[in-house]
């Protein structure tokens, strides 16, 4: 009945993902996202240390450089350029989405209980809860936010959840695949960022709920 450090860090990261949903200011969202990434990177490093998978140090390094350093800087640069800092009304008001995602946190606990017993080194319910709750938080964020930048952050949160799942439930994917996955996500974020600039330039705002000319 012990709580390992993986579980603590994963659950903390999931809690921060939930809190991120409650904030209406974009810089705060970016900062909370950075905190999540720091936690997950730390967990990867600890994982590499504990299981002596030296290649995971490399994965942790790339994850760190890419998502803890590059992506927040990139997003902040976008924020500066487009002069938007408040996310206005959404489909649901921000605090309600936060509460909704807590409910999903509980739901992911029940979902995670249905997984079979872990293989060697796999850690079960708490980390599975955390990763699935990351997924849900990201989905809620993408569905309820109107600003394009928030949608990118939501997408990255989903990816965090998937990565956390890979790390804890299956002892990590083969490293080459992990690297390739990380680079792909990086590419997605960059293209997304370019598009955000384009949207700002063409539409004078980055409110994607206004992008509805192409109905039908």
């Amino acid at each position, binding site marked *: 009945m012990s709580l390992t450090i993986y579980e603590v860090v994963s659950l903390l990261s999931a809690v921060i993902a939930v809190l991120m949903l409650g904030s209406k200011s974009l810089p705060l969202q970016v900062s909370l996202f950075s905190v999540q990434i720091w936690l997950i990177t730390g967990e990867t490093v600890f994982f590499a240390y504990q299981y002596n998978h030296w290649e995971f140090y490399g994965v942790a390094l790339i994850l760190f450089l890419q998502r803890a350093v590059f992506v927040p800087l990139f997003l902040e640069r976008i924020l500066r350029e487009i002069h938007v800092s408040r996310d206005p009304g959404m489909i649901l008001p921000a605090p309600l989405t936060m509460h909704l995602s807590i409910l999903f946190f509980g739901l992911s606990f029940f979902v995670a209980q249905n997984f079979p017993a872990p293989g*060697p080194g796999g850690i079960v319910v708490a980390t599975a809860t955390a990763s699935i709750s990351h997924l849900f938080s990201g989905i809620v964020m*993408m569905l309820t936010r109107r600003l394009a930048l928030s949608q990118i952050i939501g997408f990255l949160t989903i990816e965090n959840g*998937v990565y956390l*799942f890979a790390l804890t439930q299956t002892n990590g*994917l083969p490293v080459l695949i992990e690297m390739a*996955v990380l680079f792909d996500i990086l590419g997605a974020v960059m293209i997304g960022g370019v*598009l955000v600039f384009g949207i700002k330039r063409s539409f004078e705002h980055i409110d994607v709920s206004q*992008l509805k*000319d*192409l109905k039908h």
Partner: protein
Amino acid sequence: MYAIKDARLAGTFVVLGAWIQLLSLICVTFPLFTFGAKTIFVCADFFLTPFDAAFVVLTSAVAACAFTHGHIFFEGELVGSDPPTSANVRVNYACAMFFVLAMYGVYFCKNLGYLWVCVESTTLLSAPLVYFSRTRHALEATWKYLIICSVGISFALLGTLFIFASAQHGAVSGGTLRVTELIEAASKLDPKLLRFGFIFCFLGYGTKCGMFPLHSWLPDAHSEAPAPSSALLSGSLLNCALFAIFQIGQIVSASGNRLSSEFTLWSGTVTVIAASLFLIRQHALKRLFAYSSIENVGVMLVAIGLNSGWLFFLQALNHSIAKVSLFLLSGNIVQATGSKSLSDQSGLMASAPVWAVLLALSVFAGTGAPPFGTFLSEWLILMRAADLHYYVNVVLLIIGVSLSFIAVCMHVGKVIFGTRNPHLQCFRPLASSAIPALLVVCSLFLGLALGPLMWPLMWGSSSDPRGNNVTWRLDGENWQ
């Protein structure tokens, strides 16, 4: 490609490169088809079986046709009103080449992880293709495309992880993502995790291929992209995503779970019905053809659900040929009339008779009318479904396909006949009809010439209890 400053020179290079690629691929894969060689081996995770090689050749052919026609099309764009910048065109060519490379990668990868990476990179590389014209609509379409497909793909990654976990807990210590190993160890995979994995992967790759509830990006993306890019997207990208679903379905059905086939079958049927309903009210030519693509994706899903790889390939082949021709022609029409909506395009028969005839023939080819090849493949799929006692699906499919045929013909009929549009300006009418004509002829050939070869399949199939593969013999090869 970007380094070449002149867009037209770049275009010529691209076209030459594409045809050289096609020819070399045919040479390389020829032994697979005729001399019975099993695989072309690159390394443990990347090899080609005859089935995959067929798809690779198809993709390469589609690319060659699209690039050739694209050369002419972009020349027309550059001299027309509101020309795109030369940089735009060159970026388009560069991204398109890498995009085709990524699609080859999808077929080469026999490792689910690399498969995911390749599919995601196709999404990323095709986004600049959609964003070509830099207008507001293009931006909106690209944003929707990127976001919806990326979210879908991350679900697919989760599904891949679940499959990995099922291998870890059941069969192979340390887990594996190699398709061959997974199929071998299929019965020992953990069933619950495998089920989760299949559902997530299906949702993810299904988003990418435009399955019914997750298709909303497809009409926008395929209509905003310039015609050659639309042809590439419709003709080959959808095949990639369906191929991924097929691979995973193989694994799941090898483990004895019938979930994958039933699920795929029903979602294919629903997609067909939904797409045909959408087709009734359409206002733009390219959106019309995009919805027709969705309908064909549904038919291909049904083929996958019937566990028949070669039927899937046949439908993919016919659909690609017809759809590429349709999109290229529609690109010509849009370029000539300067507008995308159906109400502005009418009287094609009077102004550009060659195009009108080709359009009519391509529409017949694309919606499954005899004597074209699409009819044959859809007929075979329906027969197979009836053999396996999926009667409800057969009826629904027939309704859907007929409905879409009527709808598309109705809309295209208004384009071909009717009052002549005075603003029509054809750019190089003969050259721009060359490729579509070639494709129509191919489709006709597939329908007519291969018809007699299909008779033994149509009348001589052995009906098996539901769920088992029906093995047909054709010229000494195993068709599964």
